[in-house]
């Protein structure tokens, strides 16, 4: 079909242009991502001297972080790592469960065709708004809202007082405030709330686009058969949404392990991150960012551990939520093929 000119053009190799077009990406990728990753591994096998690269120490940094030691300083490294890991898990679980419950229910309600809700577009826009606001500003804002001075209870406590949750002593004019910044679980609760507040809109929109991708004839068939909305949700929406749920879970988990801005900034005492909020990302950051005495070895080793945790979690989540019907179907096909080939052999390969 092709004309002579087109054929001639096809015979010219354009491969070098392909390389030329992707070259900038890979140069930058090598220098700013791949090499830093390798460098992190290298650092993790070296000492904790001031200039970053000290003598080779093998697995000592990993040993110190994972198992501790008799030395008091090393014990600290070990204990602080596990505290930060526990904090990360607590903060992540505490924001993911309400977030997914809220987003999933909202996504289902928003996509339910026979409900008459005015201003869906407006609600969506407002609920996504917290996600685009600078996290650093959000942290400082909530610090102001939740904070309290000696004689003033702070905005949030005042609000709770108006509702009647926080009581005010009539004689001394003092409020029985909730310690939103210094309290262990109170401060964690605030950070969980901020994370949920910032991310539920994003998750909701992603789940909504997933639900809208489900074949509408399924919902129609269900409603003709007289299924209740609960049944539709359990039997149709949830199973068909599982790939996107897996995606949400994995991205949220990886994001949760990276949690930095808000735990790092949410504390009253200048330059001292609250120990109840210190996440793994903050732990690593404090080691390599220390201006006086950076400990690159520990930072590197902790980063590598974080890397593998991320990897394992990602694999588990994908394994748990993989499409089981699809796999069963593939197995069946394979079985059928085997059977036919066996039958073929029986009859001397005439099949």
């Amino acid at each position, binding site marked *: 079909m092709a004309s002579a000119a087109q054929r001639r053009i096809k015979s010219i190799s354009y491969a070098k242009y392909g390389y030329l077009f992707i070259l900038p990406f890979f140069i930058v990728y090598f220098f700013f991502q791949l090499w830093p990753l390798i460098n992190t591994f290298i650092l993790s096998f070296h000492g904790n001297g001031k200039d970053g690269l000290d003598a080779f120490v093998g697995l000592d940094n990993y040993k110190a972080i994972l198992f501790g030691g008799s030395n008091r300083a090393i014990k600290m490294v070990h204990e602080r790592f596990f505290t930060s890991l526990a904090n990360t898990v607590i903060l992540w679980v505490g924001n993911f469960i309400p977030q997914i419950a809220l987003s999933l229910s909202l996504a289902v309600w928003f996509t339910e065709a026979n*409900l008459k809700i005015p201003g869906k*577009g407006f609600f969506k826009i407002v609920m996504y*708004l917290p996600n*685009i606001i600078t996290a650093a500003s959000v942290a400082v*804002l909530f610090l102001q809202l939740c904070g309290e001075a000696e004689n003033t209870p702070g*905005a949030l406590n005042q609000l709770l007082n*108006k509702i009647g949750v926080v009581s005010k002593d009539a004689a001394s004019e003092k409020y029985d405030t909730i310690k939103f910044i210094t309290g262990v679980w109170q401060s964690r609760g605030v950070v969980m709330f901020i994370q949920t507040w910032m991310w539920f809109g994003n998750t909701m929109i992603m789940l909504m686009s997933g639900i809208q991708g489900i074949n509408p004839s399924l919902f129609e068939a269900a409603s003709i058969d007289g299924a209740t909305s609960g049944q539709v949700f359990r039997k149709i929406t949830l199973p068909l949404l599982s790939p996107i749920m897996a995606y949400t879970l994995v991205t949220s988990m990886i994001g949760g392990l990276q949690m*930095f801005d808000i735990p790092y900034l949410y504390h009253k005492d200048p330059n001292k991150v609250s120990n109840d909020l210190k996440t793994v990302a903050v732990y690593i950051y404090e080691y390599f960012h220390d201006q006086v005495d950076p400990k690159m070895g520990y930072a590197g080793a902790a980063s590598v551990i974080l890397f593998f945790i991320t990897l394992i979690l990602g694999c588990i989540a994908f394994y748990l939520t993989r499409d089981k019907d699809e796999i069963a179907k593939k197995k069946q096909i394979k079985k059928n093929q085997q059977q036919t080939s066996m039958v073929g052999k029986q009859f001397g390969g005439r099949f």
Partner: protein
Amino acid sequence: MSKMKSVYGEPKDNYTASLKRKSVILTIWFIILTIICLLPIYILIVNATRSNSAIANGISFIPGGHLSKNIKTLFKDINYNTVFNVWIGYKNSLLITGISTVFTVFFSAMTAYGIHVYDFKLKEISYTVILLVMMVPMQVTSAGFVAFMLKLHLTDTYWPLILPAIAAPAVVYFMRSYMKSSFPLDIVEAARIDGCSEFRTFISIAIPMMKPAIAVQAIFAFIASWNNFYTPNMILVSSKFKQKTLPMMVSAIQASDKFTDYGAIYLAIALSILPIVIVYVILSKFIIAGVALGGVKE
């Protein structure tokens, strides 16, 4: 749905009634959520217009008349404008964000184009590498990144904040998927026959055709870069005040003990989120559509 009703007769009355009741309850629930979403921001704006003592005394939902005084404190008082200078912050953030956004979309489009249009030996491998990279979190590589930048003496410069924008795997992935669905290769051949050079084809044919994808990704790259606190905070270490980005200045408020005027603090925070909120209000429809698109991609 309405068609169905006409085929199967009118639904029972209690069915319609229960639907109506559910709609009302849900609308109320959505309004409550809207209030929760907006309340912190509303209090922020209200408090930015109130005086220090008024804020300390109680919460209010009506704006006060202290805005001009707070502005004066924030901009004129030496204790305040040496910690938080909104103009320097805007300028630096805009410089870094602007250049890196252009880099991200341009080079991602270029990489996606290279992989999509040409056939070469390493094509599939390079695409797989890009997909794998997508999953590696920044926090994992940052220790090695900072150590490397220290060695190159690039800390306290903007290079480590701008140049990495060229390699944005997620954006490449998005652009490639977009090209697969809406960039026929015949166009490239037609351009070749007309004597158009390869690079020229990319610039004057591919880029205009990819405008929708580029616009969506540019918005997200802009927001991500503008809000980035982690990277600037670790690269601009010994930093002079003049170099700081806006999120760094906001975080400095929290660390400073000179910031004692609540009104000025709230005003500073409000100014720091103002540009991004304006951008959002203008582009919200695109942004919501873009997020939805991102959800389908997996």
